[in-house]
């Protein structure tokens, strides 16, 4: 269960970024989450709520875009989405491949902020 420490890093990161924008209020955090990161979406969402408590981010939303696992098939010479992370092979021709192109992302992409202007 490392989702809580990851959620706390996300909150820290968002707060830092908000301060850079003059202490703006963060309404939402957009996150890319690859299916191969070993981070569970549901656990991360509930951890995020906990991590936000008593911080300026309390009440903000975490919007997760899940990234499928994409591999490069050496036979088709093309990127392919794997059907399952239990079977690393080309879904078209069945060639096994360990060449992973996408699916390990754990990235804060953007923030929705509300700038307070006088």
């Amino acid at each position: 269960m490392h989702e809580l420490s990851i959620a706390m890093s996300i909150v820290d990161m968002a707060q830092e970024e908000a301060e850079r924008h003059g202490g703006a209020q963060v309404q939402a955090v957009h996150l890319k989450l690859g299916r191969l990161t070993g981070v569970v979406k549901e656990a991360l969402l509930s951890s995020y709520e906990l991590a936000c408590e008593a911080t300026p981010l309390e009440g903000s939303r975490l919007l997760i875009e899940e990234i499928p696992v994409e591999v490069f098939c050496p036979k088709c010479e093309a990127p392919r989405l794997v059907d399952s992370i239990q079977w690393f092979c080309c879904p078209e021709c069945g060639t096994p491949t360990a060449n992973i192109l996408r699916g390990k992302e754990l990235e804060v992409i953007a923030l929705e902020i509300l700038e307070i202007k006088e």
Partner: protein
Amino acid sequence: MSAGPRLVEVRKNVLKQNDVAARALRERFRDAGVLAVSLVSSPGSGKTAFLEKTLTLLYTRYRVAALVGDLATDNDAARLARSRALVKQIITGTVCHLEAAMVQNALEGWNLNDLDFLFIENVGNLVCPSSYDLGEDLRFVLLSVTEGEDKPLKYPTIFNSADVAVITKSDIAAAVEFDEAAVKRNIQAVRPGMEVFKVSAKTGEGMAEYLEFLQTRRQHFRAAAAVPK
């Protein structure tokens, strides 16, 4: 007056801090010519016994050290110290995995130039350690013959993040009707091309092949490190 919400781009890796620390460690290991190997597995799969045997066998010819992660107790370090290798315990408290910064802190006071091999035993956990790079050159995932042949399919992420699989406790394989072909098939499904060793730390079976692999790997590592950047 307040304006409406605005979208600002960030594009930052959440584990950036860990990745930066891991990269610094990897460079230090490279510069010192020490091959760093980490071990991950579920609790009870025999990591410590396997490591104790490894350290004991390597100790006669190489300068070896180990860091061992655990939530509590330093029992493992005490066990490993019997091998006479340099050993330090990392007590993680409530943290279920090692992070690069913990490795960095634990290395304080050690001169990496005095080492040939550094082993890093992660906390027994097949989930969380997969996300954290420790700067290691090789990650071993261990599974014992008692664990069920479908373990790689249940934990594909950790198997995928590892470089080598080690099947442990081979001495009791027959008693538990271990299906080696099935495990190997499952390992190849989640990590095509993965090297697999089958060992018994108790009887020493398979240890020679595995140690030869480590020594060869170290030679390649040092040859690559000797090439100017």
